[in-house]
Each structure stands twice: as structure tokens, then as C-alpha cells.
């Protein structure tokens, strides 16, 4: 039994969408644990299954076409898989909540922002609607929007302010776990910095655990304690920031770092990872990365499992069974 104080413990999560065009395998046997108060970055290319993982944690995968399988999923000790629809509605927004990628479409255009925040408070806390409205206005001020704007509609706000409203909705009931799905992707760079700062401060203030979904390694370094790198519906490497950034083990993670521009050598060519992410309806056998991997060997076509490099660092790569195997990045 794990002795750590876990806010989230997911084992062997599988999500697939069974459509007419074939079975889309979005998440394939993912394990994820988050300690209380910690922030983990979920990194990966578009289509790696990050958002599907997040929706699955909220138990919001549309069924059909979605099919979920999971050994266990505990949210702060609560068995999420055994909850009824009614019980899940009580957990969503209260214990676990989510910030969505595109603030432009995440707010209901015909309801005032005050009402949209108050709704969450009214649903989960034992207060009158007037009281919920009052707390919604306070929440608006917490995210840096004047309270008197509570009666305005989303179209009267800019993109960055809309994202602040979405953050206010997500944090209104002080959730134990917050999932932020690329919260800054749709915003321009200066606003990104403001929103990230806000999230960082609020997270500390409310002691919320965080899953930060992003494809921006810079954001991860800025905000997170741990990193999990996702590829084709699974976590291929996870560990502390130090583990993954400085002691990179997985060839895919190495490829991600190599494809970043080098600030000291601006003329250097970028080194992209060859090929494309596999089609989720047709994932290669064994390690899904092997067709693109420079270290590919026969063992890569066998089923893969996680190897512990240290107490905190795990990698899903069979090449480490080869005697003396190292990736290039490590030798530098």
C-alpha cells in the first residue's frame, strides 16, 4: 500500500471511442498518482490523450461512443468508479474541477458571469442564492475582475478576462484537485504570463493539487513539481522536474527537448522528431514510439511496462534492459 498522501490514484485507465470508422484508442492503461498539494504537468503532443484523460477523471467521457475501463480510480480516497450519477454531480465542481482550453467558448453566452460562478457555489455549498451571488462577486475580485462586472455577459469580456472567469468558476468551491487543460493556449503571451501567475498564487492559497495539461515545457518548468510525458495514450516517463528535465530517460522525451529552439545558438536548426504520432485507431504493437525511435530494437515490439530509475523517476522503455543502454542526451 502506498504510504504517500494521495489526492488522486488511478490505475490502468483505458478509454476508447467506438465509432463507425473504427475504434479510437485514446488512453491505453494509464497510471497516475498525485500527492496532496503537488502540481503535475501532463505533457504531450496534440492527440496524445491528455484531454481525454482529464475528462475521464471527471467521469465526463460521452458514452456512447466512449468506453472506459479502469482498475481503480480514487479521488482523495473516494472510489470514483462506484459513484452514481447523482453522487458524481456532487463531486464535480466541488472536489475536482476543470479549466478548459478555450475561454472564448467555455462560458455560456446567455448567462451573466456572476450567475455562472454563483451556480457552482449554490450547487455545492449550503447557501441561499443571494449568498452564492455575493461569494461569486468576491471570487471575481480574487481573480482580479471588479465585482460590479458580475452582471455582465461573457461577450463583454476579453479573452484573458474570460479565462479568469473560468478560473473563478473552477476554484469557487476550493476543489482538492484542479485540472487545467491548456489554460493559456488560446491567449496571447503577455496574458498567458498573467493567467499563469494567478493560477500559481491561487493554487498556493487554496492548497489545491493541480494537473496542468500542456504542450509547453516552459509552463511545466514554471508551475509544476512533477512531470508526466504522454505519448499515444500512455505515460512514457514521469518524475520530478529535475528527473525529467535533467536526467531524461525516454527517447521520446529526449526528442521533445531536442526540438526546442536553443536560445544560445539562434541559427541552429531545430531537430524535429521524425514521423508523426501514430493514428489512434491503429497503434503499433509494443512501444507506440518504436517506429520513430532512433534506439529501436527487436525488444521494442514486445509489450512495455514501467521501470523505476529511482524512487521518483519512472520510464516505460524496454531499451533499459539492454546492458549499458544510454540515450544521447544523458551523455552530454
Amino acid at each position: 500500500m502506498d504510504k504517500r498522501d494521495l489526492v488522486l490514484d488511478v490505475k490502468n485507465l483505458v478509454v476508447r471511442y467506438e465509432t463507425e470508422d473504427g475504434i479510437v484508442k485514446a488512453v491505453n492503461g494509464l497510471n497516475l498518482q498525485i500527492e496532496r498539494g503537488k502540481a503535475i504537468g501532463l505533457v504531450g503532443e496534440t492527440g496524445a490523450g491528455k484531454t481525454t484523460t482529464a475528462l475521464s477523471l471527471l467521469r465526463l467521457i460521452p458514452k456512447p461512443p466512449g468506453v472506459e475501463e479502469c482498475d481503480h480510480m480514487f479521488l482523495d480516497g473516494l472510489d470514483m468508479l462506484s459513484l452514481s450519477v447523482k453522487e458524481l454531480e456532487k463531486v464535480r465542481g466541488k472536489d475536482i474541477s476543470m479549466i478548459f482550453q478555450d475561454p472564448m467558448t467555455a462560458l455560456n453566452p446567455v448567462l451573466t458571469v456572476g450567475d455562472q460562478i454563483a451556480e457552482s457555489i449554490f450547487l455545492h455549498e449550503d447557501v441561499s442564492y443571494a449568498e452564492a451571488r455575493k461569494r461569486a462577486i468576491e471570487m471575481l475580485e480574487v481573480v482580479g475582475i471588479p465585482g460590479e462586472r458580475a452582471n455582465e455577459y461573457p461577450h463583454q469580456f476579453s479573452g484573458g478576462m474570460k479565462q479568469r472567469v473560468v478560473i473563478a468558476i473552477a476554484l469557487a468551491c476550493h476543489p482538492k484537485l484542479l485540472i487545467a487543460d491548456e489554460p493559456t493556449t488560446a491567449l496571447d503571451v503577455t496574458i498567458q504570463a498573467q493567467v499563469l501567475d494567478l493560477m500559481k498564487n491561487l493554487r498556493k492559497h487554496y492548497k489545491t493539487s493541480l494537473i496542468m495539461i500542456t504542450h509547453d515545457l516552459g509552463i511545466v518548468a514554471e508551475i509544476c513539481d512533477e512531470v508526466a510525458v504522454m505519448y499515444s495514450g500512455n505515460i512514457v516517463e514521469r518524475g520530478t522536474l529535475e528527473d525529467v528535465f535533467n536526467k531524461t530517460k525516454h527517447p521520446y522525451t529526449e526528442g521533445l527537448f531536442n526540438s526546442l529552439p536553443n536560445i544560445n545558438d539562434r541559427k541552429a536548426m531545430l531537430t524535429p522528431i521524425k514521423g508523426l504520432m501514430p493514428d489512434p485507431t491503429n497503434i503499433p504493437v509494443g512501444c507506440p514510439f518504436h517506429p520513430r525511435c532512433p534506439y529501436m530494437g527487436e525488444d521494442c515490439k514486445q509489450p512495455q511496462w514501467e521501470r523505476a530509475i529511482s524512487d521518483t523517476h519512472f520510464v516505460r522503455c524496454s531499451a533499459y534492459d539492454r546492458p549499458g543502454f544510454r540515450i544521447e542526451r544523458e551523455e552530454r
Partner: protein
Amino acid sequence: MIRYIVKRAVMMIPVILAVSFVVYFLMDLAPGDIVTSLMPQDATEHEIEMMREEMGLNGPLIERYFRYMKNLLKGDLGVSLSMKRPVMEVFLERFPNTLKLAFWSIIVAMIISVPLGIAAATHHRTWVDGVSMIASMIGVSMPAFWLGILLILLFSLKLGWLPSGGSSSFKSIILPALTLGTAQAGNLTRITRSSMLEVIRQDYLRTARAKGVSERHVIYKHALKNALIPIITILGSTFGNALGGAVVIETVFSWPGVARLTVTAINTRDMTLATGCIIMFTIFLNLTLLLVDIAYAYVDPRIKAQYSK
């Protein structure tokens, strides 16, 4: 908002002028002459001329048109040639009946189509969707007079619960409203369904679900209000149809409304009555569309914001 309403109302004037001119002109062109049919067979040419003069049917078209419009501003639409009564009086006597029929038929149509359309959209591509789409196809394609006759056969003749025609009691509105409402429900169901399908895919419903809002509230509070705009548009034109297109229903149920009055007026070449009825119709239809536009603003704050600029 008020400024918008005023602006929108002023825009109605050219529409009404254009329609009234076309109607007046066409009625003038129409073959058949009320004067000859009113006069005895052996009336002399001179007597017929005298009658024309008396009824104000002499002079060039434009001159007569302007005289007509001037009177219209005073609320005078002339005297019905066949009924020998002021057109306005006849119209206002019948119009409440038409309005009543249109109103109740819309209520019937909404009661049927809004829940059905929502059910079809939330159960997209299941048997619920299939059944409601087939039902709405039947509603759209079934001729209203036929449905009316079937309903009369069942409820009036066989069961004897409801009167088959007239407008003597509240009961007599039930069958015509049901018939007209069912005919409109088909279209309205399809619009509700497609509008809901559009909204159901939106991100903000996912936000609502992630907040812990129950599915029922997600649909009826968060989705429906967004889906209402196309529904209101169709409701407006449906109401227009119910005002004007109810001729068949009014005939089947001998409902004393304006639509039937207009058709009778045309058939008897009572041009003053026909012209007056059509122009009044145009005015009321324009008012309905104005109401629809105002309703938009109440549903969608983005439209309201545009108006207040």
C-alpha cells in the same frame, strides 16, 4: 432599446406602402366588376356610371390609391360593397377570432414540438430520435384539412365530445387549434432538434457539467436558452402563417375568421373588403415580426448589446 423599436417601427412604413400599392393595383387589374353584378340586368350605361361615381370607383388609379391611403390613415378603409358596412368594422369584428385561433394553435404546436425536439436532440441517433423525426415528417406532410376532417369524424361525430364548427364556446376552438397546431408542430420540431443539436456540442455545456450541474439543468437551463433563437424566428413566421394561411382550417371548421372573409371577398369581387383585409394583415404581420425582434433581445444579451449602441 426603445430607439431600436422606434427605428424598426418606422421601417415598417415603406413595407406597408409597397404592399398596399401592389395589392391595390392588382385588385384593380382583376377581372370582374362589382358594379355590374350589383346593378339590375337592365340598367343603362348612364346609371352604371352614376353608381361608379357614387362608390368612388372613378378616376385614374393613382388618384384613387392616394385617396384610399389618406383615408387609411384615418382608419377608414371604405365601405364593403357587398356587405354595405365599413370594412374596418367588418375586419375588427372577425380579427379577434383569427388571432385566437393563431394563438392557441401556436400553443399547441409548442407543447408538442419543443419537448419532442429536445428529446430527439438529446437522444440523437437512437430510436427516440427516429420516432420523433418520423412523427414530424407526418406532421409536415399531412394536409391540414384532412387531419381536420379526421378529427371531426372522431371527436364530433363518433364521440360527440366537441363541436364540429362555429365559435360558440371555448370548446369550439379546440379542434381547429389542434389541427393547425399539429400541422405547424412538424416543422417546429425539426427546427428545435437541429438548433439543440448545434448547442449540445458547445464547450460551455461541458463547463456546466464539470461544475456539477445535473443533466436536466444542463439541457433546460444552459442549452435551451441558447437554442431558442432559431425557434423564436420560426415561431414568428409560424404565427404569420397561422394568421394568413388558416383559410382551409377556417373553412373546414366554419370558423368566422378573417382569412375566410378575405377569400369570400375576392370571390364576390368585393375589392374594397379584400384590399382592406390584406393591408390590415400586412400591418399585423409586421407587428408580429417586430415582436419577434424584441423577443430576440430578451433571449440573447449579444443582440441586446447591438441594439443599445
